[in-house]
């Protein structure tokens, strides 16, 4: 069978489209996550949405609303505890997100629900419903559009918050806006790829792009390109292997990262090795 043959199936085309939108959305944000050092924050938020989802289900609200609120609660609680105790930020994050996730599990165990924990944790890209797909497209367009419009301000806030404050930018507002966009992206993405792997989509493409370029705009383009290409590759591979699609997407992204780590022209391992060899051969060239 031809590698691209699965595309003749309607549900595969569907999955490919939704997957690509999710990948592009996460890839745009991943540039900020990587530069701001929010990797663990992304991980934490993606887990912390669970109790919100369960509670929203019980209350009959849209799941995304509950997830959003509980993701925000996680980052707010972390900020508060960190400011008011002597514990390091990463430890606080770990304590808070596991606490929320555990609470979500306990809640879920006490509810006779049709809420598929499996789908929340691992995603369900191949069986995604139209309403979820529409949610993904809507939120995706909104978030990416907003980020593109505000990208210079957001970049300055990530790079040099004090300078941004001096320029009278609303730094606090922009930081929280970025955080809120991150939560929003996680909430819609996890319906496609699941809680556990959405974090990979929020870290890996940005890191890959960071190895290729020193320009932020280029970084966003490369990040989106590798993310979408890996998603397509992953979905097709998962069809042929008959394996979990979210895992295949993440692994394809990891391969792209591994290749960049080795071969990227300036910041790759081989390139810096060559540079080091040249330097020690002609030490006078350094000064």
């Amino acid at each position, binding site marked *: 069978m031809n590698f691209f043959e699965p595309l003749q199936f309607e549900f595969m085309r569907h999955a490919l489209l939704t997957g690509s939108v999710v990948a592009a959305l996460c890839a745009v944000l991943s540039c900020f996550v990587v530069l701001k050092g929010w990797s663990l924050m992304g991980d934490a938020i993606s887990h912390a949405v669970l109790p919100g989802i369960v509670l929203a289900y019980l209350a009959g609200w849209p799941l995304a609303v509950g997830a959003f609120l509980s993701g925000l609660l996680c980052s707010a609680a972390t900020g508060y505890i960190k400011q008011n105790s*002597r514990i390091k930020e990463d430890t606080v994050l770990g304590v808070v997100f596991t606490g929320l996730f555990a609470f979500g599990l306990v809640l879920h165990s006490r509810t006779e629900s049709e809420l598929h924990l499996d789908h929340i944790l691992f995603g369900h890209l191949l069986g995604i419903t139209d309403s979820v797909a529409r949610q993904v497209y809507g939120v995706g367009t909104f978030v990416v559009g907003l980020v593109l419009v505000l990208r210079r301000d957001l970049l300055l806030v990530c790079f040099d918050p004090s300078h941004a404050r001096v320029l009278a930018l609303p730094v606090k507002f922009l930081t929280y806006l970025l955080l809120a966009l991150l939560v929003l992206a996680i909430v819609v993405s996890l319906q496609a790829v699941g809680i556990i792997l959405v974090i990979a989509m929020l870290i890996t493409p940005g890191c890959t792009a960071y190895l290729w370029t020193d320009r932020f705009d280029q970084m966003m383009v490369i990040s989106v390109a590798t993310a979408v290409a890996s998603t397509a590759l992953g979905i097709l591979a998962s069809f042929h292997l008959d394996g979990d699609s979210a895992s295949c997407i993440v692994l394809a992204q990891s391969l792209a990262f591994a290749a960049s780590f080795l071969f990227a022209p300036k910041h790759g391992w081989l390139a*810096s090795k060559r*540079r*080091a060899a*040249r*330097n*020690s051969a002609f*030490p006078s060239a*350094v*000064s």
Partner: protein
Amino acid sequence: MSDSPDPPAPLLHLEVQQVSVVYSNGHHALRDATFALSGGTICALVGVNGSGKSTLFKSIMGFLRPSAGQVRINGQPVAAALKQHLVAYVPQAEEVDWQFPVSVWDVVMMGRYGAMNFLRIPRAADKAAVEDSLRRVSMWDFRDRQIGELSGGQKKRVFLARALAQGGRIILLDEPFTGVDVKTEEAIIDLLRELRTAGCIMLVSTHNLGSVPEFCDQVVLLNRTVLASGPTADVFTEQNLTTAFGGVLRQFHFEHSTIQEHDGRTVRLLTDDERPLVFGKDGHLEYKDREGREDLVRQREEQGG
């Protein structure tokens, strides 16, 4: 301990021989650095940021393998000297996690670990050494404090006590006087002098140029290599310092400044290691250049006249 009734310790030598260090990213941090010290001495390590001071420290502590040359302590390689616990290190305040749940006593006891048994259970001798070191830096009364509860000077003294308890004979001090009040600075210097008498080698990296001639008998000037080394009087010359610091060091030429005859020879000089603040006779500010301040100069001439 250095003041135990052991036979007098043999003369100590530290030799840095043509050491070059290239980091894996290709950065050439040190090239062909050479100098030698014999105990007891207090030697200042002076140079701009990025001149290789910490790289040199790391080479002496054996954390870095030089890409060329070697460091020898008493004729042995560093690894052998570390096994005898000869090298002690007093870290910069920023390197320490002050919230760590350990007391002053615990920290100083850590200096003894190298000499302890497998389980690191302190014997009477270890406890005596810790007590003695704490008393020498006058921190015995603070032994049960958590380390974060101390003042800047007290923190420094605790880590100095740890070096003493370890019985280190080559003591590396990284910026020991930052965040320390003048009284503690003097107390630390007194202690260093005592250790010099006992035959130790102290290598002090410092930005505090003014205090170097006060207590250091030798100086190593560093800028990615050793520019000069030897007795303070020979090395700590204006010419050498200008080479080491280039334009980085602030200068104040009296003949170009606003200081005038009527100030006599008394001006007060305040400095935070950067650029001195100079006050004239009546406590008025003096400026580095006369240019642009002709009015001021004339005015003061009239007053002085």
